């Protein structure tokens, strides 16, 4: 009999808050439903909006082990589920022959001792509920995606030599996707769906404050405002992610900045925009004056920032 570990919606929300994961109510509700209904949750969104972080944070909140399966092209069940330790089996046969022992039984060779446990099997066999993070599922091949169906719908895996292994504790499964390709309907049907977008300015300020200690209120607001403005640029090849915002804010704090201006943004731009074409686009279309305009700082007077003059 599987025991369902429950957590209330309010506890989940406060857990998110404690761990510094700022999200809106509908996100918390979707995660709560996934936990309650014991269904995997598929999170889509642009890179760097906090999809993978959700898995880590959930493991933290539920005090569970985080088991991560990073997907890539060519990933197969030997890397995701299990593999027999072929070399060890061969050595055992050779040793037996050399020591002239009794013939070994086939069952001995296909026992736990020779089984290399991979993330999916580990999550299924875990005696305590684990959080299984299947990261960037859109990067794996469609064949592997189909293979995941059994794990995601029945929480069991089949190993020909051992039979079907049901989950001891149904893991919390978090799948993430950058939407590089359309996932199959079968996979989507088995999951609850959550789309994470880039946060609004207010929310990003909360994230910055929650994650970076010692950040000035004004700096947090200005950082978020500049990043939001950059994300609006349609021609940008790579929009700055939340992780990059945080790195940038950290760098500004270590430079003893308490506020921003166009010069400071231009001189630390490579922390936010990481391709040459994006930096050129910034210089051409926005520039120092553009940033100052966004920050509402008139060039002739007003409450201007002195940090860049230091």
């Amino acid at each position, binding site marked *: 009999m599987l025991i369902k570990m429950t957590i209330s*919606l309010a506890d989940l929300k406060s857990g998110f808050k404690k761990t510094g994961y700022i999200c809106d*109510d*509908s996100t918390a*509700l*979707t995660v*709560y*439903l*996934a936990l*309650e*209904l014991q*269904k995997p949750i*598929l999170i*889509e969104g642009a890179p760097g909006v906090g999809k993978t972080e959700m898995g880590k944070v959930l493991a933290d909140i539920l005090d569970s082990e985080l088991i991560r399966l990073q997907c890539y*092209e*060519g990933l*197969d069940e030997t890397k995701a589920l299990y593999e027999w330790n*072929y*070399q060890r089996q*061969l050595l055992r046969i*050779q040793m037996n022959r050399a020591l002239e022992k009794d013939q070994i039984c086939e069952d001995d060779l296909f026992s736990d001792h020779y089984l290399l446990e991979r993330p999916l099997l580990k999550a299924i066999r875990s005696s305590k509920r684990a959080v299984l993070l299947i990261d960037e599922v859109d990067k794996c*091949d469609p064949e592997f995606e189909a293979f995941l169906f059994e794990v995601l719908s029945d929480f069991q895996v089949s190993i020909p030599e051992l039979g079907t292994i049901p989950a001891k504790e149904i893991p919390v499964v978090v799948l993430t996707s950058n*939407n*590089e*390709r359309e996932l199959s*309907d079968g996979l*989507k*049907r*088995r*999951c*609850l*769906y*959550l*789309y994470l977008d880039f946060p609004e300015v207010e929310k990003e300020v909360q994230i910055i404050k929650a994650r970076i200690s010692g950040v000035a209120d004004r700096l947090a607001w200005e950082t978020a405002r500049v990043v939001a403005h950059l994300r*609006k640029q*349609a021609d940008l090849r790579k929009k700055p992610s939340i992780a990059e915002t945080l790195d940038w804010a950290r760098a500004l704090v270590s430079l003893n900045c308490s506020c921003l201006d166009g010069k400071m943004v231009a001189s630390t731009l490579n922390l936010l925009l990481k391709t040459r074409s994006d930096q050129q686009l910034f210089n051409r279309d926005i520039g120092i004056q553009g940033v100052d305009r966004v920050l509402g700082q008139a060039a002739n007077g007003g409450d201007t920032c002195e940090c860049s003059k230091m």
Partner: protein
Amino acid sequence: MQQNVKIKEQYLEKNLAVFAGLLRQEGLPVGTTEMIDALRALTVIDISSRDTFKAALQATLVKNKKDQPLFSRLFDHYFVPLDEHRKRNEEVLLQEEQLSRQLEQAAADLKFKGELLQLSNEELKQYSNLPPEKRNSIQDFVQQTENGNRVEPQFKPILENVVKSHLRYCRSQEKIENSAAGTASGAGTGNISGESDLLREVDIETIAASELPAAEELLKKLSRKMAVQILRRRRSGPRSGKLDLRRSLRDNMQYGGLIFNLKYKPKHRSREQILLLCDVSASMKNYSTFVIHFLYNLHEVVRDLSCFSFSDTLEDLTDVLKGRNSLQFLLDRVIRHSKTWGGGTDLGAALRSLEEVHTDRLNSKTTVIIVSDTKTMALDDALKALVKIKEKIKRVIWLNPLAADRWPDYRSVGLIAEQVEMWPCSNIGQLEEALSGRL
């Protein structure tokens, strides 16, 4: 009391089932699993909160970001407060009455020798919504025909066809005007990403010049996505080939012949060629340009791409269009500098010329993509040339910008569709669907 609770539960389930039907009707893939999940979700949330209720349904019923706005709209329309619901019902009844009066009036207007013209309710409705001057002009035409010399009662079907085609013309004009108005009102919103997603379903012909940057962004986005698909399919996994026994034996000599490490043969990959043939008659200009732009965005993965425009002759655009040109540039190039621009379409002649001059490009690895509305001179000749060329190459994909519901009206569409796989491509969404997984 028990009975009451039961009725309430059924009420919610029934309502949800109707709502799911509505979502399905609009093309959202809502299955039984989603319905069960939604109902289970409702048992663990506070359904008295509208936002929570909506978020729970969205998480369980909608599995795609692009479907979320549609879901939101349908939800807001379907789940309304009781007062609003009553008000809407009254409005619907009123509208129905009004419509029925309009239809009666329209039918009375359009009579030929005392008999009603055989027009569908849709056509009558369209007629009654026309501006008065257009309605009067149709009425005048019907009356003049009726009062003409030697007018027989057998003229009625002819008159009906004329009225129907006039209404069709008005409809297409209205569509173009609406699109232009939409563009004007949408200008300056600044949300290019949102705009470009909306363009997915808009007829390419009606996309205005001011919307081209947004369309270009959408084309880029879709082609990036498709490039990833193509690359992924081509790259072989570590064990995708067959076991290489020779290498396995040689590599494991160090273990005394025991095969510890298995070696696999790399997967064979053939180099595919794509040959794009674009009809550049006046009605086809926009469609052809969009397809050219879309495929040229794929230049990193589809390197062997040749492009030709055709009308009654063939023009090689491959070299001219290499390089990352904007959609506007391509449109200008196709119109102003193409030698084939403005000629009558003769597919047969174009295919024969392709076969004679570019015979080296036609082999078993070639996929030919033809963008045309099938309206060609000498159809039989074109069919023969198509069959002949089909034998030499891997496949022919025909992208037809005519809306699929109009295909039965054209004999040429039916005959060509028997020979090749034909896909509608009147908007960017259809273009993506037609080429996805086929390159």
